[in-house]
């Protein structure tokens, strides 16, 4: 007979208490202590929130699928939109074991940099304006600024300072858009490239541009109507300032400057996401506000999801919806501690969004989904994102160091719960036309290829 040290609800009760007192993540011990020591995180949580088997007392076990028949059992572990998809739209999600190894939950360099900072006493604070700086007043130097976040703002800063958690990321993306009746409406492909200028893992400031945080370019390669459109956003380090936006639109045949203060507009027809949605931090952090953790609890999510390395183009299979292809085949695991972070678009008068709830896995401070609510506080769109290592059996894609597996987002469901329209995106190996995903690439070359007006001109439709 096994004598349990804690009762079944201990973990959940303790998380609630921790939230009330503003304690750091972890139930049995602070999570960051284990993180800094490179230890297994299982020591931080009681067993019943580390295993779906134990949490449900065997009603749902690792390896099972969540379906309409059993999803009610774990309703409180899912965000309401994912629950609805499983319950009413034929979505199925496979349960995987809870990950306890911190090192597979980050890009290796980001993980190492964060530990290095912790060991060297490099910590972050907010300056008077609310921007992240080191305690000695310098701009943030890379890695998680707040490895043991206690406030909503600290959690948001962990998301905002480095989106892809690498100095350079280049994603080849397919975005398939489904009409409410399940028919495919659009099949877009584009490249999304990010170059960190500061908060870099190599400790440098790219080309000494000390007023900038990052460059980001989105470059559409298909369909025909949007191919050759590209947009370059230059982000200031000051998160109260809107990025500069230059765009190449095929009809204009040249690069023009565009305003950037409207962040709640569909960039291309059909899609459900706004620039505001990606990374749960698509807008400058200080243009949003009222960051508040409203709940901490175990949840199921696409944490450490399976990378589809057995597909030539890294794409997952599909299922569900009216035509059996609305949802990616995904796996979820139970995270022992997820912070539900509420924030509001305080800097956007007449924004259609009332608030946003982001579901943050406290093990790695990464979101797995964020739901924006309309002004009537009705759930609107869930930007569900699955992250994981790019390793499957003996297949692996290496990250920037050329040794460790890459870690990134794998796929996205951006579902409009009000119109029932779905944007289903895949981080794929290559787009039509030979545009590839890159994790390891010369930064100067990347700058020339994506982040100058010369680059934008070249990327544009001739």
């Amino acid at each position, binding site marked *: 007979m096994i004598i349990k040290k804690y009762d079944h609800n201990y973990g959940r009760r303790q998380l609630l208490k921790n939230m009330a007192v503003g304690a750091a993540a972890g139930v049995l011990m602070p999570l960051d202590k284990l993180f800094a020591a490179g230890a297994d995180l299982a020591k931080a949580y009681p067993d019943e929130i580390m295993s779906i088997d134990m949490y449900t007392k065997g009603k749902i076990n690792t390896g099972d699928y969540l379906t309409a028949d059993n999803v009610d059992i774990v309703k409180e572990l899912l965000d309401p939109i994912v629950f609805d998809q499983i319950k009413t739209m034929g979505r199925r999600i496979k349960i995987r074991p809870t990950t306890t190894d911190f090192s597979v939950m980050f890009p290796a360099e980001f993980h190492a940099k964060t530990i290095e900072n912790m060991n060297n006493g490099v910590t972050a604070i907010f300056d008077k304006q609310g921007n992240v700086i080191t305690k000695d007043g310098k701009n943030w130097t890379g890695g998680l600024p707040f490895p043991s976040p206690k406030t909503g703002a600290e959690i948001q800063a962990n998301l905002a300072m480095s989106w892809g958690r690498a100095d350079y990321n280049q994603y080849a993306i397919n975005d398939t858009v489904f*009409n409410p009746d399940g*028919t*495919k*409406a*659009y099949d877009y492909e584009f490249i999304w490239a990010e170059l960190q200028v500061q908060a870099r893992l190599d400790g440098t400031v790219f*080309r000494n541009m000390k*007023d900038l945080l990052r460059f980001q370019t989105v470059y559409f*390669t*298909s*369909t*025909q*109507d949007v*191919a050759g459109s590209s947009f370059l956003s230059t982000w200031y380090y000051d998160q109260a*300032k809107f990025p*500069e936006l*230059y765009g190449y639109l*095929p*009809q*204009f*045949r*040249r690069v*023009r*400057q*565009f*305003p*950037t*203060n*409207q962040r*709640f*507009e*569909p960039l*291309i*027809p*059909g*899609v*459900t996401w706004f620039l505001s949605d990606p990374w749960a931090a698509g807008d400058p952090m200080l243009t949003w506000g009222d960051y508040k953790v409203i709940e901490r609890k175990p949840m199921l999510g696409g944490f450490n999801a399976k990378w589809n390395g057995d597909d030539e183009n890294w794409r997952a299979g599909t299922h569900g919806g009216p035509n059996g292809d609305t949802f990616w085949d995904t796996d979820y695991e139970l995270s022992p501690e997820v912070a539900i972070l509420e924030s509001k678009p305080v800097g*956007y*008068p*007449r*924004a*259609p969004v009332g608030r946003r709830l982001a579901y943050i896995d406290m093990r790695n401070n990464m979101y797995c989904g964020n739901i924006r609510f*309309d*002004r009537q506080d009705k759930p609107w769109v869930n930007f569900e994102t699955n992250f994981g290592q790019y390793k499957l059996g003996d297949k692996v894609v290496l990250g920037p160091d050329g040794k460790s597996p890459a870690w990134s987002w794998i796929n996205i469901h951006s579902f*409009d719960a009000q*119109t029932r*329209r779905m944007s289903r995106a895949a981080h794929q190996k290559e787009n*039509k*036309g*030979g545009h590839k995903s890159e994790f390891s690439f010369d930064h100067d*070359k990347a700058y*020339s*290829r994506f982040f*100058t*007006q*010369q*680059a934008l*001109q*070249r990327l544009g*439709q*001739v």
Partner: protein
Amino acid sequence: MTLFRVVGRPLVLPLALCVVLSGPVIADDGWFEDFDVSFNGFVRAEIAGSTSGEENPNNQGGNLQNNQNASRQSFLPPALNPLSGVGSLLGLGGVGAWGTTPLPFADTVRRGDFVKSTSNDFNYAVVRTEIEMNMQFNYEWRFIARVRAMFDPEVYDAFDANDVAGFQGGLESGPHANSALYEGTPSYFDYLADQGGNPNPLEWTGSNYQVYFPTFLLEYASGDLSLRLGNQQIAWGQAIFFRVFDTPNGLDLRRHSLLDRGLEEFSDKRVPMLSLRATYQLNSDILLDAYVGRFQPSVFGNPNTPYNIIPSQFTVHDTYESGGYDDKISGGFRLKGDYGQFGWQASFVSRYATEGTFAWTKSGVNKPLSGLVGSVINTAYNAKLPANSVACPIYNSATCRLYGDSGEAMANSSFSVNPGGVYSADEWFQYAALARLDAIGGLNAAVNEFDGARDIYASVAGNVSESVAELNTFFIAAGGSLRGHIERTYHRENDFALGASYVNESDNNFLNQLIFNLEIQYTPERTFTNPTLSRQAIKEDEYTVAIVVDKWHRFSESLPGTYIVFQALTKNRSDLVGRHLSGYGRVGLDSLSPGDTTTLKDAKTGNASYIVFGFLQPTANKIFEIELATLIDLDGGILFQPGVRWNPGRGLTVEAFYNHIDGNVWGDNPNTNMISSLDFADELSLRVTMQF
């Protein structure tokens, strides 16, 4: 029946190159490691239905005089007048002018008795396809080809020159213009210069189809440099539609003229140019863009096509080939600096102005006058003595002739005896005013600058009544009408441009993120068409100033933000399409007195100034986009274009937009604003696109 008529260079080579290069390529490493070929394209049906019920007045079938009766009285030419012409030579003294001695020949002419009026429900109907091939050899090297093909099913009620074959011996283009444009039904796509060639490289056209490569280039990129060599379009500047920096390419107005979606600007209108373009990022803030290429002129709609803007009483001799302009080079550079909230740009372009200028030219049509009056003049002409002969050692037009007969004299004037020209002085004055030309000065320039005209007894007219007398006499003598012949020539100019931008940041939501751009162009000694069509073109310094304000603003929670653009432009010498302002404000005979010496009643004293306002309002998920574009001429004209675009997905896009054009919103004279020239073109356009 020939469905297609091919004019231009062989299509085989570029197509074959595409096919060969796009075939399977097996390469695992080395130069072709990253080799990839991709295609995309679309098919689109485009149609525009007229809602004005008006025909294009520049076309034969829509001529405003077709249903008018005009009285014509012939007069004895002053050169034949015993008092003022021959008499004066004989020492009999006396003065004379046109209108002094009436001849017993007068009539009432109705243009429509010669030229059939047309009635069209549709201004425009084409099927278009575009295919782009992107062939990536590696990052550095890329070949891009975009082919655009158009087919016009010719659903129009159009002029056919064969219908006037029974009058005046039929319509002839003469030796300096292409018969395909004048002697049959309209050609909707040909661009034919005076030696018969198509000035546009990589273009193949017939009367109802067009195939060309707006893009056909090889690209090399390395670091911050990219080079493009081939047929390409180059666009500069922040202003939309207003071309301050945007000077490298001409515009192709053959298809839907300037009446496509305003927010698309000139996406398919820029005339591609064989050129080398270099773009170099000098540093993180400054971009250098430079080009050198073969001069390519703007392309205007052909006679009697729906949006033709040159009155079809003219025959145009485009001297692009004969004048040697086809080997002229244009080139320039632009520097653009951006420093966050501020930016600047500067450019210098040395080019041949793409619009060119127009002036009277010898018709080359050897055809004598006819009818009773014509016979009198021919007889008198034949009775003259050859100039420079013993009998006529000193030339005078009364007794000496320069040419063998009156037909040869006409060939050496700027007029030809043909149907489909100007039938009456009423028409002459009316169309001169509409075309921003000087009716009296134009007549006199044609007389002064062409000895063939003087030789056949034309002479300078001093006022309206003299002009009317002279014109009507020759129209009667022609047996119907005279066509005017003008040549298009091109002129080098240096364009200097400067610009500045500023992004406003404000706590006031409406003022926040307003992007201001100021763009200024200065061109010294720019050449303009003289409103008299004199061969002495006007050369004056011109400046153009434009201000552009861009803004995204969210007006409500329920609709996505609205993209708003406001622009204003002013020019001191010419209008938006390059017509000199001294041609503005002229009137027809109805508003003139016989003794008037000018047709200018509402002279434009200031600049030509325009305002553009546009917005784009997407709906949720951008399934619908509602848009508005307006162009306002501050002297009384407005183009108002609301539209909607529907994106239902599955590759389908449906667009509808309406062009409401009013050239007489305020002011007394519509000829004082540019927009009245398109007043006929109120229309509803529909475009259905399927992409692949």
